[in-house]
């Protein structure tokens, strides 16, 4: 965990509301694991006041990547940064995906909805290099919500896309696509990141199919490193339901621990 006040923004790619940033930040890159995130200072003044949590989309040698969608004030300010600027990053934070060694050689589903695809590229790369066979599911509202499709494909991953409006790939929700594929294949594990309704539906599917899974959750965060107790969600652990910190105990939780009723509905 490092504060890098001078992470240089090296490259910016964008597709409408979606942005892919590449930073030079050797110390954070060295420590990074898939599923971890950064807290990014988006403003010089107090508007907005807090840093913004954004997943690591990739980390390689001295560089980091993030992939984000403009959702409000903070991400809009972030999207306006230009290559060459220095940005204040805090990270890597949280517990990432845990990669079971016994998955080597097996097929693994990585399911991303919308901006939830962000951490899955990094994960898929790690899975592949550890010998597993990731299959990436990438769902969006429309074809313009799948900006990473090419990047994922050209990196050699098997990518199955879905769009709610049918403009690309499977027509319908990404969860339906997963369900359809589960009739044909038997993955050893599932990782997912996306909006709560998608994840809740996936949880139901996994439970039905007895498929083990880890989900990366979102929550509004005050600090990102365990100091404020602001980011909690209800988690079932050791037979008890408690509020655990998404930033420190997560953001990745095993499927069976997540209590969906108490999700952030604000």
């Amino acid at each position: 965990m490092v504060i890098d006040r001078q992470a240089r923004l090296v490259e910016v790619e964008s597709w409408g509301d979606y942005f892919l940033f590449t930073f030079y930040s050797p110390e954070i890159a060295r420590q990074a694991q898939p599923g971890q995130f950064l807290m990014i200072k988006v403003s010089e003044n107090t508007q907005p006041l807090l840093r913004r949590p954004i997943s690591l989309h990739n980390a390689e040698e001295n560089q980091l990547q993030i992939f984000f969608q403009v959702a409000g004030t903070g991400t809009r300010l972030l999207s306006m940064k230009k290559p060459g600027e220095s940005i204040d990053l805090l990270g890597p934070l949280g517990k990432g995906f845990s990669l079971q060694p016994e998955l080597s050689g097996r097929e693994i589903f990585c399911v991303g909805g919308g901006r939830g695809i962000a951490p899955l590229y990094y994960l898929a790369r790690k899975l592949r290099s550890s010998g597993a066979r990731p299959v990436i599911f990438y769902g969006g509202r429309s074809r313009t919500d799948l900006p990473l499709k090419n990047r994922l494909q050209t990196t050699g991953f098997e990518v199955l896309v879905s769009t709610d409006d049918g403009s690309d790939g499977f027509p319908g929700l990404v969860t339906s696509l997963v369900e359809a594929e589960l009739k044909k294949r038997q993955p050893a594990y599932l990782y997912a990141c996306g909006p709560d309704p998608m994840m809740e539906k996936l949880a139901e599917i996994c439970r039905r199919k007895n498929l083990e899974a880890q989900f990366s959750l979102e929550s509004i965060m005050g600090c990102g490193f365990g100091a404020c107790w602001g980011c909690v969600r209800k988690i079932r652990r050791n037979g008890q339901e408690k509020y655990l910190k998404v930033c420190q105990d997560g953001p990745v939780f095993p499927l069976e621990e997540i209590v969906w009723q108490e999700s952030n509905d604000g």
Partner: protein
Amino acid sequence: MVDLSVDLGFLKLKNPVIAASGTFGYGLEFKPFYDLDLLGGFVVKGLYFKPREGNRPPRLVETPGGLINSIGLQGIGVEAFCREILPELAGLKTAVIVNVCGEEEDEYARVAEYLGRHQGIAALELNISCPNVREGGRCPAQSPEATYRTVKKVKRVTSLPLITKLSPNVTDITAVALAAEEAGTEAISLINTLLAMAVDLKTRKPKLGNVMGGLSGPAIKPIAVRMVFQVARSVKVPVIGMGGIFSAEDALEFMMAGAAAVQVGTANFVDPDACLKIIGGLTTWAEAHGLKKIREVTGSLMA
């Protein structure tokens, strides 16, 4: 070399900067960022006797210049704290202050008594001002009588110095401060958060799971400075000021208005090393103004 030390009478601090309760975890969370010994002190998160689950999420909302929280004092309870955390804080060369909570007045005394049996605690901060626990945000610090009673009860069971933390959600902050002083508090700290609320237009629900919460951050600083000014003129015990301190300049405003020391809260979230930067900034400012001792700033306002 500027002398940053301040003397609260019952406690000497190497500098006037204390990390505020609820924003500094149990201290350990900040070890990765800097040596805690550099701080004047820190206040750990509020403790009840029993562990507490805290409030339903969402627990945070940002507002212009501010943050509303409704954590609801989630925490491990005083027994687990003394067993698991306190030993890890042993040996620190900074003032470890414990924030004491209670559902009713007697619980404050129970928690204080329990803590008094342990080593390594420099002072207790009585959190009679949390707006996130009782119905409608009520708390003992909203009444001089309840304040007096609570402080008195705690004094009876512990010899640890007491800092009584006041609520800004009152008509007359000086009346409450005077009650705390009369009951024997060694110092007064203020302000806790202002009771606040935000509405989500999409869902037509309150943005916080617990409906209301406490507002902190730069937005409340002018209210906090005013209250510190009023209290410092009314009581003889030292005053510890807080509310929206993000820079050394902010800290100096509170000191001029009468604070002997300051606490830094929300700023710790934005910049984990905020306290350090503020300490550094105090030295820089003192040097630039030819000041030898930072404590001379306290109450130096010409008004």
